[in-house]
């Protein structure tokens, strides 16, 4: 596989690694907050890319893994006082289990029916959690502030959380690259192009799809736990935001689906736009309209996303822009 010799690998990994390292070294709070959101989006978009970009199954409810995994991780953290690292991984594992169970039923559907089903799953999960007493029901869960003392106080804790997120995002990007250049990934791409032909050629589609779905679920679970711990609380409304799910989709499309660099750039660009428009009183709602406009332009004219377009125009760069 010798992926460490490929420039495409290094470009992606270094972008995330160096970016995060700079933030850590500078030690500024506002920069860290912005970088947190960027890294979170990169991790979510990259994980969605596995099922949507590689396998071609559009998951409109990707956020459900963020929500369920995050809730579970946060529950372990706040109610049972597990250490953050363990709780985070447990959250990711729960998301994987949910993906396996749900995927068995839902991955049989094709095309638009699958997309609709994922929306239904997200809504059902939200309504369920809102009624589930161990998860706090409609008023959600919170940590007692002293929980941050285990990590050296709130100020330090916020930095630890950031570092963890940085590592998780690197892992996500590395995994995406490895999947893309593996036999497994090739099978997924074959499924995307023509599922029946792929099966005829020996790709075990049902099992491969499920594996991809489960893989895509793991990282959002980790990210969710970290995000809720940073905020100190979680409510059903925050954990299963359909709008965020769609925004992640836009990020993948914006950068270029099926590529590793695509979600990274797409997430970064989208977050910058959003952050800029967040505080401007006139334009704060325009960000949604602008994103919609950009998405429409991409869908109509540049379906490969930004990176896809560059790869089309400059074939020489294909080795680098993976």
């Amino acid at each position, binding site marked *: 596989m010798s992926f460490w010799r490929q420039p495409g690998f290094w470009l992606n990994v270094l972008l995330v690694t160096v970016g995060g390292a700079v933030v850590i070294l500078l030690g*500024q709070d506002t920069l860290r907050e912005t970088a947190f959101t960027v890294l979170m989006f990169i991790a979510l978009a990259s994980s969605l890319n596995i099922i949507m970009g590689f396998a071609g199954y559009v998951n409109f409810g990707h956020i459900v893994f963020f929500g369920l995994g995050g809730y579970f991780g946060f529950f372990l953290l706040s109610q049972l006082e597990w250490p953050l690292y363990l709780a985070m991984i447990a959250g990711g594992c729960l998301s994987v289990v949910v993906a396996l169970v749900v995927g068995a039923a839902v991955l049989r559907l094709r095309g638009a029916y699958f997309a609709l089903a994922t929306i239904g799953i997200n809504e059902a999960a939200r309504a369920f959690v809102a009624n589930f007493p161990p998860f706090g*029901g*409609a008023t959600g869960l*919170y940590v007692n*502030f002293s929980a*941050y003392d285990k990590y050296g106080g709130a*100020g330090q804790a916020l930095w630890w959380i950031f570092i963890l997120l940085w590592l998780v995002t690197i892992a996500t990007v590395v995994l995406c690259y490895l999947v893309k250049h593996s036999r497994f990934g090739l099978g997924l791409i074959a499924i995307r192009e023509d599922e029946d032909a792929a099966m005829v050629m020996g790709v075990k589609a049902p099992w491969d799809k499920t594996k991809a779905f489960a893989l895509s679920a793991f990282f959002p679970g980790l990210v969710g736990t970290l995000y809720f711990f940073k*905020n100190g609380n979680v409510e059903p409304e*925050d954990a299963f935001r359909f709008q965020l799910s769609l925004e992640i989709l836009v990020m993948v499309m914006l950068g270029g689906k099926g590529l590793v660099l695509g979600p990274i750039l797409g997430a970064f660009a989208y977050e910058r736009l959003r952050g800029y428009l967040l505080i401007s009183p006139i334009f704060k709602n325009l960000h949604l309209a602008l994103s919609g406009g950009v998405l429409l332009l991409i869908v109509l004219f540049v379906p490969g996303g930004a990176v896809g377009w560059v790869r089309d125009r400059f074939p020489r760069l294909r080795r680098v822009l993976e």
Partner: protein
Amino acid sequence: MKRFRVGFAVVLSLSLILASLTAPPGATAADKTILIGFTASKTGKLNVEATRQINGLNLWVDEVNKAGGIKMPDGTKVKVETKYYDDESNKDRVQELYTRLISSDKADFLVSPYSSGLADAAAVIAQQYKKIMITAGAASDSTHKKGYTLVFQSYTPASRYLTGAVDILLKLDPKAKKIAIIHENDKFSTDVVNALKKYAEDKGMQVPLFEGYDSGTTDFAPFINKIPQGVDAVMGGGHFADTTTFARQLYEKKVSTKMIALLVAPPEPKFAELGEACISVIGASQWEPLAKYSPEAAKAENVEWFGVTVPEFLKLYEAKYGKEEPSYHSGGGYAAGLILQKAIETAGSLDTEKVKAALDKQDMYTFYGRIKFNTTPKLQGLQEGHEMIYIQWQKDNQGKPAKAAVWPAAAATASPFVCPTR
């Protein structure tokens, strides 16, 4: 020549940089300013209440600056500036925006957004970055059970919100037995009704219906249809928008009961827009313009008085905002400013620890009522001194809806009456 120009440019830019670094923007040694940061729901479902709250707070800022600033013991005055953003009644934005207020805008002190849910989200951020936050419009007790040390509550907590309504009910009908509770599924309303249920059951009553609805619900028919026949009272609600809709639908569906007591909406003057539907509805209010707090009454109880009197507040509010009648949300906003002002004056400094110590010691009467904070570690910052006033919408001499205070007896201007059969 070229080298000279380049050199000149370098020297000029260097000196400009040095100048901007050293000289503070037009400030003299004796004149300080503090920046108070907050978010407000200028849009979104909480915008009615939030607008009132910031009107009150901004009025306080104006008055303090008109007097030259907050008076410190050493004679200097500290002027107040504010910075705020619109949080769109959205919790996520609140956390991002408060982080920005603290780290980029460098706010010295914080006031919470309106509503317990949003204030809770902001409180985490305030405590994480070690800034004092005075909450206004936040009554939930649960915020103060989370181990925060720098968050101080100006409202009477939720656990004491509707308990008086049970007392009113028993006065109207000592044989009343059943209360139906339909409430918003958010921190504030949940805290209120949990305390309400316990209080009612302790008095021997039953609660045959106890259900929560999602924030933002507009269709209350499924809940109203579940109200058993013959309940003595319907209580609950949440915030202004949903409670008003709930009251309207109770009227449209001709629900018959002896008493309707709802949260947040009835004390708002806008509630009168419901017309016939608002008559006889009881609400719990943090403060009313007809409140009887005064420096004399404070002296009689041996507690110090601080700030404007009730008539003075009403005059100032009318001068700035015209015909808009202040509701308790407006009063709460102004009171939050007063609390901070008194604490800074007592502490004689802007240092967070010293101001916190001053807040812990605070015990005073204001136009808004008594202010005293809980200082035990379990409930740090919870409001202990403040009391609720209950109002009911009744018809005035011209047959138009008007608020009357009906409880407690010492503050009452009229007697409560049973809901007319619909």
